């Protein structure tokens, strides 16, 4: 039985569809990711799956329970790490976890041992009696991850788990997440707009403007792009595009003043293009396809550009008007 089953899920905020007919299954024990820009519908989907929002239409089951009719069973079966912190900063780390253990029905005899276990894994045991206000951003995140696991959930939702943290802290947190995920054999559902973070997933759903545009393993997604990406700088890109089309039958795209093209074997292609192209080549860059390239190929825009997208802005504003649809 899949851990998460989603079928034709839709959610409209007023006339704007935030989630526009999304379907997917997540296997038990799988690490599954939603990759997409801000406003793509990732958080809205998580909020529906964790019973905080009602879908406009469609169905979703988490750990075998319907998110609309069996909400308490769903809540008992999931752990959550929200995009924005949700700790009581005036309580100590230990008190935050105790609170959680109580509301999630952890048996009294196991409360202390489970709290100690998770606190040791995220290396906060020594700071357990400090008020959370004094924790760094990374420590707060680790505490939230520990908290999300005390009640032994079947599914852990991570909404942008390392947003706003520096790369070193990000790595550190991922070590902990994966360690806990393996130890408890839980299903992990995460959203991210960091490409490197998406690499931790077994499968990724690329989501854009409320729709899933591709769903596969990171490697398979990258294979969709082609073997290698070459980026060129020339004094006359227009002329270069025409020449590349005529000479090699390849479609080069102009992006940020550079030309971008996909070729099967970049290392062999570079000397040829430098030698043969009618326009002088000022600089060349070769890289293996990343999920950034996948996103660009699938949607026609780069993932970071989305911030300025009017529809994404409208969605974000819609959330603000409603006082935070993230809740």
């Amino acid at each position, binding site marked *: 039985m899949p851990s998460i089953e989603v079928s034709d899920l839709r959610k409209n905020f007023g006339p704007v569809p935030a989630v526009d007919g999304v379907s997917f299954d997540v296997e038990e024990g799988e690490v599954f990711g939603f990759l997409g820009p801000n406003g793509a519908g990732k958080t809205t989907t998580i909020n529906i799956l964790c019973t905080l929002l009602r879908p406009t239409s469609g169905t979703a089951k988490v750990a075998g329970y319907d998110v609309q009719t069996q909400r308490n069973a769903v*809540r008992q079966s999931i752990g959550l790490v929200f995009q924005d912190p949700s700790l009581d900063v005036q309580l100590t780390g230990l008190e935050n976890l105790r609170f959680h253990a109580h509301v999630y029905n952890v048996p009294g005899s196991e409360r202390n041992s489970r709290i100690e276990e998770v606190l040791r894994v995220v290396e906060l045991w020594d700071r357990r009696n400090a008020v959370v206000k004094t924790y760094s951003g990374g420590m707060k995140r680790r505490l939230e991850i520990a908290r999300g696991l005390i009640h032994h959930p079947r599914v852990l939702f991570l909404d942008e788990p390392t947003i706003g943290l520096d790369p070193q802290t990000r790595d550190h947190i991922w070590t902990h997440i994966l360690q806990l995920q393996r130890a408890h054999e839980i299903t992990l559902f995460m959203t991210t707009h960091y490409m490197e973070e998406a690499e931790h997933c077994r499968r990724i759903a690329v989501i854009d403007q409320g729709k899933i545009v591709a769903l596969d393993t990171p490697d398979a997604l990258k294979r969709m792009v082609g073997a290698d990406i070459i980026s060129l700088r020339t004094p006359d890109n227009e002329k270069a595009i025409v020449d590349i089309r005529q000479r090699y039958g390849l479609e080069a795209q102009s992006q940020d003043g550079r030309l971008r093209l996909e070729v099967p074997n970049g290392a062999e292609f570079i000397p040829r293009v430098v030698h043969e192209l009618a326009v002088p080549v000022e600089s060349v860059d070769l890289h293996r396809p990343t999920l950034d390239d996948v996103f660009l190929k699938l949607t026609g825009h780069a993932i970071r550009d989305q911030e300025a997208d009017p529809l994404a802005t409208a969605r974000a504003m819609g959330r603000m008007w409603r006082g935070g649809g993230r*809740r």
Partner: protein
Amino acid sequence: MATYAPTVNGQPERYAGLEANLRGIYIIWYRDVLRSSRDRARIIASLGQPLLFLIVFGAGLSASLGAGLTQQLGNVSYVRFLYPGIISMAVLFTSIFSAMSIVWDREFGFLRELLVAPVSRAAVVLGKALGGSTIAMFQGAILIILAPVIGIGLNPLLIVELLALMFLVAFAIASVGILIASRLQTMESFQMIINFLVMPMFFLSGAFFPLRQLPRWMAVVTRLDPVAYGVDPLRRLLLGSTLAPGIQIGGYHLGTLDDIGILAVFAVVMLLLAMRSFETTE
């Protein structure tokens, strides 16, 4: 945000078990009490204002209106008359502030931790109301210590009665606070609530002046003020029934039990509305 009834497709919503909800109520209550006990500054601040009112108004009005005022009150000094009102003030403000901590929790994100927990919204509301009432009762209890200074003798039974009454008043007020907080998105609106709801509730409660021989419109408004049904029995307990003959409705003077009944019904109605409001907003 979606509005929905507690039933889905005609199927009743599955609620968490009673035991889980009781544990939820307990820990939500415990958190509020723990937080407030740690917040020494707030405890002192919320004692300061009532004491300021007691001293300034007590001394000021006694001095300027002097004997006439005392005579009007049946040979009781104005400070003594004011004292139960000041206790009500501490209870009123503390319970409103505690209930409003829901808005803080919303701003700081903690509310989501509560709202995705497998406990019912009813448990969240009840835990909050009980937490606020407990804190407010303690705040009032600190002021009770002043009674002998004002010349009011205390005995164990009286103290128990006072605590119980303060708890009930606080519970009723906290319920209103939670109902409002369920609809407030930001703390900025909080000052509005204080100015246009809490202050009038305080001024019209009979804390400052007897609710007798008032202009007709004002008499009507005071009867609608829940705090009035707390000030009156509190004054009766502390100063006797000559100073607190009971709020008059029709030709009937309400007794302490009537006040308690009114407060209890009011609290239950407000709590039910607050629970409903939480079900539909989040």
